[in-house]
């Protein structure tokens, strides 16, 4: 990160949205010493302060993306902590939770410390590591969850895999509860997924691709919820993709079971039809589903069943994606399209208000994993994103090392203009260069 400026900064006249305090009003904000020093109307700039005119802009807590593959260690050809966090900054994201399915998997305190050290050396934004639930993500033996939490892990997950054995997951939930760490489950019954490569249904039949039935997710999600009920532990279901799973989470919440969930922008934007247009850049796991699922995901976001929006940013090299559909890896990049897709697909059509959208991109993700970020109270860390809600741009490429996205060529609105972490500016587009107060 660039060194923090000791000069105070006044962000003037922006529409300040802080869902944690149900705040949505035009307010000035002063950043000083890396913190939100003051909020108020018509604030006089402190002596020597820089002033940033933010009229017409949204000023919000920096976004928190709890599902990101940074690929370091092991697949630095696709992404590194440096390039991945640069991409996040470009997308208005100030905190990412790094998934542990690296090579080797992050399944020990040493692994967590490696990620934190590399982040300290190279990251542009905050990196919160997660550890795997089982050794090597093999689903056989518990990893040292206590040690990983002590070293700084904010969640445990075998992401990419579900924990296949119910007894083992039960133990993991009970054990993780001791450390107040959230278990994040990629809900998938592998036996039912088998060799599937896209959503099961008429389109897969037409294209001659093996299908992944929606029940491969809902069976696992149902089991995961039942185990949360059994253990009283908190379980977070990540990247849910089907109507059935949304219904299961909704009912579980009604019964008071401690379950939370996130979904990705691609699952509320696209359906399996994208496979025809985008080929392997529309191949991800869980796969893009049908229109009824896309609508159910949006409903789930609206009524609070789905707590968070997360990118599942999964960079892959061009060579690995320019292959036969069945041979290419699952996953797309998403850090830089999370915010504009949310604006264009959810806010503009009226599915979510700005405050509810920011709640799902910043406040709730921080809350779900108890991260000390995601709000803009006086005294909070100055992790801030300034968004131009109307500026339109065509997506032509990414700061990420990888470019595997079905959204290349899309024209979207709501891009981040300024991003700061603890008061340090990590992204600034020309229009909002701060000027010295006269």
């Amino acid at each position, binding site marked *: 990160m660039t060194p923090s400026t000791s000069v105070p900064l006044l962000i003037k006249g922006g529409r300040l949205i802080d869902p944690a305090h149900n705040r949505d009003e035009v307010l000035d904000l002063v950043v000083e010493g890396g913190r939100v020093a003051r909020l108020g109307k018509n604030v006089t700039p402190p002596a020597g302060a820089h002033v940033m005119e933010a009229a017409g802009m949204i000023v919000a807590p920096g976004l928190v993306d709890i599902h990101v593959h940074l690929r370091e260690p092991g697949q630095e050809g696709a992404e590194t902590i440096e390039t991945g966090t640069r991409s996040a900054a470009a997308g208005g994201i100030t905190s990412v939770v790094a998934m542990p399915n690296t090579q080797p998997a992050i399944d020990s305190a040493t692994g967590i410390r490696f990620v934190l050290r590399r982040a300290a050396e190279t990251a542009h934004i905050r990196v919160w590591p997660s550890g795997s639930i089982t050794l090597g993500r093999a689903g056989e033996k518990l990893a040292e969850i206590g040690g990983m939490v002590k070293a700084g892990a904010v969640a445990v997950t075998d992401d990419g895999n579900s924990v296949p054995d119910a007894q083992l997951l039960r133990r993991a939930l009970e054990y993780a509860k001791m450390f107040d760490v959230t278990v994040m489950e990629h809900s998938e019954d592998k036996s039912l997924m088998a060799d599937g490569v896209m959503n*099961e*249904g*008429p*389109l*897969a*039949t*037409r*294209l*001659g*691709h*093996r*299908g992944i*039935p929606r029940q491969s997710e809902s069976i696992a999600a149902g089991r995961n919820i039942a185990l949360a009920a059994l253990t009283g532990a908190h379980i977070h279901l990540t990247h849910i993709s089907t109507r059935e799973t949304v219904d299961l989470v909704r009912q579980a919440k009604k019964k008071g079971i401690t379950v939370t969930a996130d979904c990705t922008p691609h699952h509320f934007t696209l359906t399996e039809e994208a496979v*025809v*247009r*985008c*080929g*392997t*850049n529309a191949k991800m796991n869980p796969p893009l589903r049908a229109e009824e699922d896309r609508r159910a995901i949006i409903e789930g976001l609206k009524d609070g069943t789905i707590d968070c929006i997360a990118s599942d940013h999964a960079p892959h090299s061009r*060579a690995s994606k*320019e*292959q*036969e*559909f*069945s*041979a290419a890896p699952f996953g797309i990049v998403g850090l830089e399209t999370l915010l504009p897709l949310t604006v264009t697909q959810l806010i503009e059509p009226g599915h979510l208000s700005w405050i509810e959208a920011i709640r799902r991109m910043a406040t709730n993700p921080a809350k779900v994993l108890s991260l000390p970020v995601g709000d803009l109270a006086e005294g909070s860390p100055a992790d801030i994103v300034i968004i131009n809600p109307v500026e339109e741009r065509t997506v032509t490429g990414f700061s990420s090392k990888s470019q595997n996205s079905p959204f290349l060529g899309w024209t979207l609105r709501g891009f981040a203009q300024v991003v700061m972490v603890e008061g340090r500016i990590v992204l600034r587009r020309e229009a909002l260069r701060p000027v010295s107060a006269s």
Partner: protein
Amino acid sequence: MAVSAGRAERKNAMKDLLGLESLSAEQIGYILDVARPMKNLFTRSIKKVPALRGRTVALLFFEPSTRTRSSFELAAKRLSADTLSFTASTSSVTKGESLLDTAKTYEAMKVDFLVMRHAASGAPELVASAVKAHVINAGDGSHEHPTQGLLDIFTILEKKRKIEGLKVVILGDILHSRVARSNLWGLTKLGAHVTVCGPSTLIPAGLTDVFGPRVTVSTDLEEALDGADVINVLRLQRERQQGDYFPTLREYTELFGLTTDRLRQAKPDCLVLHPGPMNRGLEISSEVADGPRSQILDQVTNGIAVRMAVLHLFAGPEGLPATVPDGKQTAKAVQTTFKALS
């Protein structure tokens, strides 16, 4: 990945033959019309014409195949094209070369056609979007095998004189079958009623949503065969049993094997087709395979004629036109040219 002209722009000429899904009924009819004079050549002592002299056809077989490759090779040779063969097991693929690099290498050798067989559905489409050569799909995964579909329809047409209104049964492993999909597209476009029949575990999801109301699904062979004009028996991959799609080969034969007895349910002049290679005594009994209704060896002969027609018609710089000329006229013209050469 760009979608090749085949699917995206129906109105334009078609560079590649990726599947029968993207062909119109008229285009299918046109290819079949032109296949006729090709077949007439086979009765002559000299079966070769110079239609594709100077052209090169590369046969890229990433998956083992004897009959389809031989058939394409012979088709190309009878049109005087040069052929060149590629087999995955003896090639740079085993050294880790990507599909696109292999295809571009052949493109750089200035071949005119890439005839391609691949285990992955959609692989020919990927190649077609990256090269200028005409890509002819010789079978991709569980997706399509268009020349097999065309030769099956050609065979039916020869005997039945029409496709419209016929009842055609496709029997066996529909889920994994590219032959089934190409037959379904071609036959339904030409107005046949198709009944697919097999164990329910080998019928893919949403089949009738894809192929429309002319298609019905049955898991009762006797019911499916009732009143059938044609039955196309698919090859059963023995390894499907390991995948627990059905309990034993014995029970499969018991329920879905085509026998003389069962064939009595169909019309007396029902044709029996099989794309080969056959598992005698498994999906088809020897009595049926060698019986009077069997078209199996005719299919092999017709396959060459159909592939000659495909190579001939796609050889133009634009490929197959979207609006095709009268097929009968073209066939006549081809016939006359060939006669002059004899």
